[in-house]
């Protein structure tokens, strides 16, 4: 008896969360999504933008896509990415999209299985972890569902997916380091603030700088992970300042850490920005960061392009027309912005 009541309550909550998600705005539905994910419900926080309530009216010519993404709260990058997806895969554009969010691989896999059962046409996937996807993608293939990876790659056979749209983090790092070299400083004493160790962004952005340190005589005053965290970055830079070690470049692997570093510089009256003592470099192109750039407080910001939806849209259209995709891995265009050349237009267009 108790179990029955419990089941009824659970069912009611699930229905409620679906309804709530469908009607509320992106922010609150995201919050609900991740709260669900946190409780570890086997349903892996499935949110449907148009499924369920509108399924009876939807006709056959709509393309059904199931989108599995990381939690939009994770970062500004992810928020922009999710917004981009939601704006592109709309009914007006001929898509019937369902979304699932989780930062956990197993929950994402569960969500993928559910989408396969629902019979989607395309499965769009930004995997939380690289491993463990083989069997579920094989199931998708058997069911005739085509898989497109975005943002993250996975360790699976290439035949299991149609295309993979990714950022080349190593290239991002190289662009930034090339820019730094072009500044022709008399010496390079760099504080290097790394992201969470082992993440693709950290590895790519660190790699280029490490090479430069080995080959071009860049001196790394300190090389520490601040785990994408502004407070940690502030403490690390503070520690270098307290020690009295001279430095003239801050190479932070994201904007938040650059911001934390700048807070420490301000406290110690060390000037930073265009034509000042310390060069500040960040990544990700948050809107506020680009504004700092425009104000001349920072020097460089490297883009990590979150706008994959148009690329995916392109690929789906091609596949629907029976064309083949020539390259499996598609690398997006990414820019690096210099404080001396950035315009308001850039801030508006590329800020996330």
């Amino acid at each position: 008896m108790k179990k029955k009541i419990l089941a009824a309550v659970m069912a009611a909550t699930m229905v409620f969360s679906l309804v709530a998600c469908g009607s509320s705005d992106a922010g609150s539905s995201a919050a609900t999504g991740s709260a669900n994910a946190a409780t570890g419900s086997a349903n892996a926080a499935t949110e449907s933008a148009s499924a369920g309530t509108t399924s009876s009216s939807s006709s056959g010519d709509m393309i059904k896509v199931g989108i599995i993404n990381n939690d939009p709260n994770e970062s500004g990058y992810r928020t922009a990415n999710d917004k981009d997806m939601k704006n592109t895969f709309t009914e007006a554009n001929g898509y019937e999209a369902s979304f699932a969010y989780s930062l956990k691989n197993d929950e994402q896999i569960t969500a993928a299985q559910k989408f396969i059962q629902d019979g989607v046409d395309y499965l769009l996937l930004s995997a939380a972890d690289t491993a463990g996807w083989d069997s579920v993608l094989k199931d998708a293939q058997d069911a005739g569902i085509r898989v497109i990876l975005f943002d993250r790659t996975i360790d699976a056979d290439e035949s299991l997916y149609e295309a993979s749209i990714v950022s080349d983090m190593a290239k991002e790092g190289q662009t930034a380091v090339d820019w730094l070299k072009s500044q022709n400083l008399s010496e390079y004493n760099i504080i290097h603030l790394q992201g969470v160790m082992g993440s693709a962004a950290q590895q790519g952005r660190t790699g280029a700088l490490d090479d430069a340190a080995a080959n071009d005589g860049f001196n790394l005053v300190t090389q520490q992970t601040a785990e994408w965290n502004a407070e940690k970055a502030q403490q690390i830079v503070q520690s270098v300042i307290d020690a009295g070690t001279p430095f003239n470049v801050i190479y932070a692997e994201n904007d938040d850490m650059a911001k934390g570093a700048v807070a420490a510089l301000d406290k110690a009256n060390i000037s930073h920005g265009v034509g000042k003592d310390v060069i500040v470099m960040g990544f990700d192109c948050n809107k506020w960061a680009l504004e700092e750039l425009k104000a001349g407080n920072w020097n460089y910001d490297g883009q990590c392009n979150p706008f994959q939806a148009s690329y995916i849209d392109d690929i789906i259209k091609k596949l629907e027309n029976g064309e083949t995709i020539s390259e499996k891995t598609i690398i997006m265009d990414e820019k690096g912005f210099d404080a001396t050349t950035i315009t308001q237009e850039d801030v508006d267009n590329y800020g996330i």
Partner: protein
Amino acid sequence: MSNEKKVEKGNKNFLSGLFRQQIFIPIAALIILAVFNLIADPSFFKITLGYNSAGDPVLSGYLMTILDYGSELAILAIGMTLVTAASGGQDISVGAAIAIAGSVILRVLCGTNSRPDTLQAPIIVAFLVACVVAMLFGAFNGALVAYFKIQPMVATLILYTAGRSIAAWINNNELPIVSDPTFSYFGGFIPGIPIPTPFFIAAVCVLVIFLVLKFTTLGLYTQSVGINENSSKLNGLNPTFIKFLTFVILGLCVAVAALIKVSRLSSINYSVIAKDIEMDAILAVALGGNSLSGGKFNMAASILGAYVIQFLTTTLYKFDVQSDALPAYKAVVVILLVVLSTPKVREWLSAFGKKLKQGKAVKEVG
């Protein structure tokens, strides 16, 4: 002659008394760290007066950094000590609660526009709203623990997992940035005063809690509930309410810490603000020699413990220890503390101490 002996005896009693006192643990840890730094690099203790980019005088140096960054932790340690003493468990949701309170502060200050040029409300209003919200979440935790008798760690796990999403939801997942310079005073410096403001805020909190403990029965009641809930009930106390109250007080501490945190950067990042601070706060309580299973507590020792932890963190940063390895060093401290507090080791230590004394006495006779 006899006078001299008396003084000596008094000294000995004082020393052994100190050794037995709870506050000895954080003091000893502090001395070990200080001596280590003194030997490794005496410049650690150098404090210089300089000017920040706004042209105001500021003191800087490692010691100032410790006072600065240890302050949030000290404030949290106050609340955490009370919660630990009364409920015999810990609140692991303080980091997430800080994200919520910080988000509320920014929401009130910024209104609906995430990048306002002027503040939409006075800072004090924003702070008071955050206090109310943080205390409500504290009350939620407290109710689960006190009235529903859920284990504190399990009860607060709810907010621990959901808190950061709630914080993001409060601001529609936007990242508000406050441009008003007065807001940065709380986590930085007040113009003209060269000591970091967080230290003053912590000092006020410490003063308040000491007055409260001295002039009210909060401390006594909390301890008696922690030591034996049933007997305190028989003596006319209301253990449920006292447990509930400690969580609400922790909520207030969280709001104060959140003000400092968001003021430091005039912004917030929901997923990483005050990350893992709950572990440091609990460690501060443990380092203060307080039993993590409740009962008697020593507030001064906890607060000192908080600064000792920051001392350790700053020392490790100074020696370029990889910051993702910091928890490992803190784990070593925890292991030492836990081992030292087990009855077996205590017995062994006191036996060892007695032996030493006897040996000395024999020598003196000889």
